[in-house]
């Protein structure tokens, strides 16, 4: 994980290295300054020499200025390094996601990918900046301060050693416990947010059943659980502070006692004693910082893991070497084909069939029978687990991916339009399509009519998710978009379900008359959508139950008969056209 993430520092390596260097220099100055202040006191004020005070004052100011410059530089470079790091992470993730196959996308889910690219990356960005600046500053401060103490008075610094041992043990114990508790807190927190989300989405159900009080009680309980856990965690964390201050004050008292003795003997000056006081503070505050960094690192580790997972994910489908770049015709063959989504169950079981180029094939069957899967195997959105799928006589795994997917156009069941004009959306099918080409595709898909009624026609803006067009209009636009590819094979996965039957029929007629040479796979729930196809595949539990014409199936296939009977016997839709 760490390696994957660090690989993304790339062009910001220099900045990432310069940041800790400048930070260290800033720290060196910061540590030296109290030493100079001890001179101001000892050699200037105590000695009654104002010129010395001015002299050392000027030295201190110069050092302060240098420290300022280093500080600003380290701030600049850390900003550059951390924002650049986040930029590279996002780019790497996004690029890799673009190589993902459907199987990869299913694994992460779209919503999951969004969180990883936004929240998780910004967590990592701030962690990276903190690491570059503080994680160098704190240990350096610690080491230098200890060094200076030893330098000023070796015997006195023994006090620090004792203090450090006590403090680090205590901090370690507290922090290791709080980190665990924090992990639990975040889990509960997610649960709480989930329950809010559930309520917002299902508010109609809540209100219809008058369950407001019930939900309030449920929520209150969850919120109280979170409260107790939070209080427990923070109380534990709150012990940090008294432990620290006790040790610091202990040091100050010890310093005063022994310091007085040393000064009397003449081993120490009063200025040095005040410097020692300052170093105590520095040492303790750097320890505190270190403990904070530790907590922060454990918190961002989860984000790091989630980001690295996306970057390291290997696409399961890619173009082979020496790929075939020409699809001969629109014939399709399934050869002993099996497919599993990886949940142990086969969605497609041992299918062998041949579809001629230019044929119109209907596919019908219950939910989960594998009809959509069958369609997706043709354009290699998933790879067959066993057996093979051939397009134009060649195994789909041998094709160049872009070539195959342009020749096998798939209109997905859960389809989306993107924000932009209608033309922008259509041109996804063909980047350089002219307005005429787009219009023709829309005519075929029966979308032309409603587009012409829109205020800006083909330049009408589509909102995100296509919210300003109806379900049926959206489906027709998606079909038109696919038609612009002029594919050899067209797969329609339940793509007209929201269109009324008349429109549905018109689309099929247009296909038959205008693009007769394209092989068409029509996956549908409604028997009307498939009954005039050349042949119909009836599917059940991943197997082909029947593959014949409508008439023959009606005579021979029990399942088909049943579906037909149910749909025709007054159980059909009674939906007025939109």
């Amino acid at each position, binding site marked *: 994980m760490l390696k994957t993430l660090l690989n993304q520092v790339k062009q910001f390596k220099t900045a990432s290295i310069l940041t800790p260097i400048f930070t260290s220099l800033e720290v060196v100055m910061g540590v030296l300054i109290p030493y100079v202040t001890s001179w101001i006191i000892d050699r200037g*004020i105590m000695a009654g020499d104002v010129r010395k005070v001015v002299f050392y004052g000027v030295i201190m100011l110069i050092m302060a200025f240098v420290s300022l410059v280093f*500080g600003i530089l380290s701030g600049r470079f850390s900003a550059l390094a951390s924002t650049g790091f986040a930029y590279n992470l996002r780019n790497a993730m996004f690029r890799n996601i673009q190589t993902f*196959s459907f199987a990869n996308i299913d694994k992460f889910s779209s919503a999951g990918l*969004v969180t990883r690219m936004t929240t998780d990356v910004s967590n990592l960005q701030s962690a990276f900046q903190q690491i570059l600046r503080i994680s160098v500053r704190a240990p350096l401060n610690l080491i230098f301060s200890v060094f200076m103490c030893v330098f000023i008075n070796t015997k006195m610094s023994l006090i620090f050693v004792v203090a450090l041992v006590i403090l680090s043990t205590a901090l370690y114990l507290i922090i290791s416990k709080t980190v665990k508790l924090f992990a639990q807190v975040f889990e509960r927190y997610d649960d709480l947010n989930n329950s809010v989300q559930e309520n917002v989405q299902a508010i109609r159900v809540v209100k219809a059943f008058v369950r407001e009080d019930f939900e309030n009680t449920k929520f209150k309980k969850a919120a109280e659980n979170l409260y107790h856990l939070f209080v427990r965690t923070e109380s534990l964390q709150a012990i940090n502070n008294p432990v620290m201050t006790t040790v610091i*004050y202990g040091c100050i008292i010890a310093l005063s006692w022994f310091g007085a003795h040393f000064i009397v003997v003449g081993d120490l000056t009063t200025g040095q004693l005040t410097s020692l006081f300052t170093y105590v503070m520095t040492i303790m505050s750097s320890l505190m910082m270190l403990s904070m960094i530790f907590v922060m690192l454990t918190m961002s580790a989860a984000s790091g893991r989630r980001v690295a997972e996306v970057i390291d994910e290997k696409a399961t489908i890619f173009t082979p070497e020496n790929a075939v770049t020409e699809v001969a015709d629109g014939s399709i063959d399934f050869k002993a084909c099996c497919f599993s989504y990886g949940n142990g169950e086969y969605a497609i079981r041992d299918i062998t069939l041949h579809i001629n180029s230019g044929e119109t094939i209907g596919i019908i069957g219950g939910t989960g029978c594998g009809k959509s899967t069958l369609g997706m195997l043709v354009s290699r*959105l998933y790879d067959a687990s066993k057996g093979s799928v051939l397009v134009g006589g060649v195994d789909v795994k041998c094709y160049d991916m872009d070539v195959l997917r342009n020749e096998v156009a798939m209109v997905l069941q859960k389809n989306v339009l993107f924000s932009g004009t209608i033309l922008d959306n259509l041109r996804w099918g063909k980047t350089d399509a002219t307005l005429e080409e787009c219009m023709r595709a829309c005519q075929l898909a029966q979308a032309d009519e409603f587009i012409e009624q829109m205020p800006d026609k083909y330049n009408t803006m589509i909102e995100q998710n296509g919210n300003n067009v109806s379900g049926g209009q959206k489906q027709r636009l998606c079909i038109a978009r696919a038609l612009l590819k002029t594919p050899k094979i067209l797969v329609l996965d339940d793509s007209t379900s929201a269109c009324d039957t008349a429109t549905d029929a018109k689309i099929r007629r247009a296909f038959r008359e205008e693009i007769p040479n394209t092989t068409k796979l029509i996956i549908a729930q409604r028997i009307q959508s498939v009954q005039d196809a050349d042949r119909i595949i009836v599917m059940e539990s991943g197997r082909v139950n029947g593959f014949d014409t409508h008439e023959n199936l009606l005579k021979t296939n029990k399942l088909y008969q049943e579906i037909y009977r149910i749909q025709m016997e*007054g159980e059909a839709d*009674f939906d007025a056209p939109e």
Partner: protein
Amino acid sequence: MCSICVHLLTHFSLFNFLFSLLPSGRSGGGVKRIFGYVTRNYKLSLGVVMLCIIINSVTTLVSTLFTRTLIDDYIVPLTQSENPDFAPLARTLFTLAAVLIVGIICSYVNNRLMINVGQGTLLRLRTDLFEHMEQLPIGYFDSHAHGDIMSVYTNDVDTLRQLIGQSIPSVFSSLITISITFVSMCVLSWPLTLLVVLMTSVMVFVTRVLGNRSARHFKARQQNLGAMNGYIEELLTGQKVVKTFCHEEEAIARFETYNEAVRDSSNNANREANIVMPVNGNLSNLIYVLCAILGATIALKSPLGATLTIGTLVSFLTLIKNFTQPVSHLSQQINNVVQALAGAGRVFDLMDATPEKDDEACIRLVNAKRNDDGTLSESKERTGIWAWKVPKAEFTHIQGKTDESDHQHADFGLIQQRGEVDFTQVDFSYVPEKQVLFDIELDTDAGQKIALVGGTGAGKTTITNLINRFYDIQDGRILYDHIDIRKIHREDLRRSLGMVLQETHLFTGTVMENIRYGRLDATDEECRAAAELVNADDFILRLSEGYDTMLTADGGNLSQGERQLLAIARAAVANPPALILDEATSSIDTRTERLVQEGMDHIMEGRSTFVIAHRLSTVRNSDIICVMDHGRIIEQGNHDELLAKQGKYYQLYTGKQID
């Protein structure tokens, strides 16, 4: 005298500075309200906290000033004495230790109490927010993106957590430390204090200038970040489409422009923000040197006749950090406070949204039993008979009423719940400028099945939403058993109407718990019976753990049809006197759809039902069919009547058959 002036001056300017940074108007109110929340239940705790912070600051000061005592009163005499006696020093150190322990205890008590105060306030805030949200009308959820409402609970409450838990206490303790340090500095030496105050003002000024500069960049960053997140969200949601269209390269190219904009603006913002710390730190070094020089001059040359001992000067110099650090801390905290206040604004916007009104309601739904003489009386148990309990004063306004109560309660009359719903000249619009229902007239009788048919956007769902008062009508009247529905308490009205929505929502929990949602006191057996009644039993038993199977993410592990079956079972267990059903349309396969339909048929039996119908058989069997078009009922009657009419219904019905 002079020190008091300076004192006033600094505090005045400091507070001025604090408040000048806060946006005026609403946010100012926000501060008050948050403080109100914090103080409401924790007055005692906060008092103790305040005391603890003060004591703690004093002890910190004592420990800092101790350097002076140590040097002036002990070390210097000790070095001068022939026979050094360390006993007085030991005694002082013990006293000091005692004082410091008090300080440590105070600081712990303060931190510990603040945890309860902070988390307790958040608990209250969350539950208040949630309880208020549950009261909001459906319209609120229509007009606010769900993601937006969610982010109030996550982002905005989170920033308030920062504010209450960290910013407020640290601002408070900074202010106290500053004040106490300031007073002691004045006592030690007012000319030096003056210098420190002057220089600190410079520091505050610089911080503010830098803060403003980075705020500009932060704003740009937020905008770019929003744009990028929007793009990511849209594109990744459609990632499968990107794949089928081989649009990967274009997607990457566009993403990189967004990404670069984010990188550049956040680089600018962070760069500016990162300058603040070193600048403040080194300005405080500058102050230190200036004070040392000025102090040394005063102490050694006494130009103003002032007296300044070496020890005092040394103490003063140590105090400087105590003063400048909280000031710099404070000026940086301001940014957090401003951000949190923006979040608070959004929290209170949600809290101030108008809840559903129930002003006129006075009628309740009660269980009733029929007495031997045919009259009704109220019953404690479920009897299967429901009645409206109407105050006597209201009785006179109800037309066509049939008073069936036993008149034992002089104050109330009982009217049996039958399920007659009548619409009189109902107009409705979701938003003022766009009317969606026009002049709806509808008369139904008890136990009738009313089918609403028509295309998308015809207003079918809207009508059902008006009956259970998801929305309130603007014009006309809806009567339920001759009672104006506004007179019925909203929860009783809804309790009397079971509802199965087309869009099914399930809750995290077991299958059993989801069914029981319909009636919380239903036994396991009753839930099972309901599931059996609506054909859901079969698939539930096939689940890995049957009725105890956990459902997560809105029943994501079930198919659409199965989820719908559960929703019907949920309505069945509620066993409501009347029903509103939305028949499912697509995305269920024919076999499951059949199960769902049968399930719906079972629960419709013997109940007044409004059904948004998609099935011919449902429509045909209805007592009243309302054909809707563009917000109007264009035809009304039963199947045969409407066919005879040869109008729109005839067209729809026969058109289907031909196609």
